[in-house]
């Protein structure tokens, strides 16, 4: 039990996927202008991330390892993720149109989101069991959503701020991210 708890704390706060591992920066900068959009993106990424974590783990353990073709990992994983995103999109469109409407536009972007592939590879590198893979993926998904939501909250308020012209947009967003990252550094003493 304690092991799981450590995984959760470390994935959500200490090794936050965006602010300390630098994965998924593109959506973090691109879709964090509005709170509703960042919630949508967070939801879509979490969904795919957890599913992809489970699937890639199964493929690694039952397919790549027994046949000793571990070097195909990158190709296999990216194909799984691309297919999964497409599949999720189709299923959602058919069975849950409201959810599709909310998340739909973010789904295609997720294929090239390095957070999904990154977490899948970390899961394998750390040689987690299936239970830990699920907990680890879920906590990273939560960490991603947390960072995105915090960021959009700050950026909504920044709208009124008087920022020098050349710093507007992405540059100031990166400086905000730096300050948030400093705040998250404070968690490193937790464990």
């Amino acid at each position, binding site marked *: 039990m304690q092991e799981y708890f450590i995984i959760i704390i470390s994935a959500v706060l200490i090794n936050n996927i965006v602010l300390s591992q630098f994965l998924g*920066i593109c959506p973090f900068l691109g879709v964090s202008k509005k709170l509703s959009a960042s919630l949508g993106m967070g939801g879509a990424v979490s969904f795919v991330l957890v599913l992809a974590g489970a699937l890639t783990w199964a493929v690694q353990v039952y397919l790549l390892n027994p046949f000793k073709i571990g070097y195909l990992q990158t190709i296999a994983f990216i194909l799984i993720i691309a297919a999964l995103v497409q599949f999720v999109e189709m299923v959602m469109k058919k069975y849950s149109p409201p959810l599709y409407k909310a998340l739909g536009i973010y789904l295609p972007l997720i294929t090239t989101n390095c957070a999904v592939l*990154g977490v899948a*590879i970390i899961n394998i590198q750390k040689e987690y069991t299936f239970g830990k893979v699920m907990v680890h993926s879920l906590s990273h998904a939560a960490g991603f959503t947390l960072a995105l939501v915090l960021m959009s909250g700050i950026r909504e308020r920044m709208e009124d701020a008087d920022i020098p012209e050349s710093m507007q947009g*992405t*540059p100031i967003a990166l400086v905000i991210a730096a300050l948030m990252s400093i705040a998250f*550094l404070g968690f490193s003493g937790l464990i």
Partner: protein
Amino acid sequence: MSLINEFTKGIIKENPLFRLVLGTCPSLAITTSVENGLGMGVAFTAVLIASNIAISTMRSIIPDNVRIPVYVVIIASFVTMIDQLMHAFTPALYTALGIFIPLIVVNCIILGRAEAFANKNPVIPSIFDALGMGVGFTLALVLVSACREVLGAGTFYGIPVLPESAPAILMILPPGGFITLGCLLGLMNKLQKKTA
């Protein structure tokens, strides 16, 4: 003449990192030292050139509606090759870059060049386009990592450059990456406005 144009546009006018803000993940994560930045840039350039050549050669036989998956598989194959090569010949760099070597697959610049350039142009211009983009990205990585390494560790490519003093360790920690890239982007915007 136009070949030179394809080459130089990637370095300044359409610099992938500073102008198009693509490929931010690796440029924040591995730029803690100039050596890593350079290594990443070279690996990235190699993959980009190879994938541009392959995609440009096959552009007439790839069906249009499945082109993205095809590109991804082509890119992933080259990334796997680079991954294995680096594992064998530069083990230290391989460990330092870690997870970011397989993650070259999802670097938006490579897929972006495949979609925007290689599938519309013949092989030779595609090579020059890839070279220009690769060199531009490598220069950007080296610039970011130089700022971070000099300020954060007091060294440049491992050689001490700052006088004996306590370096700002923050710069080689994650926040330093964000703040360096943010300030450099702002600076680039300002410089561009002046020249324009």
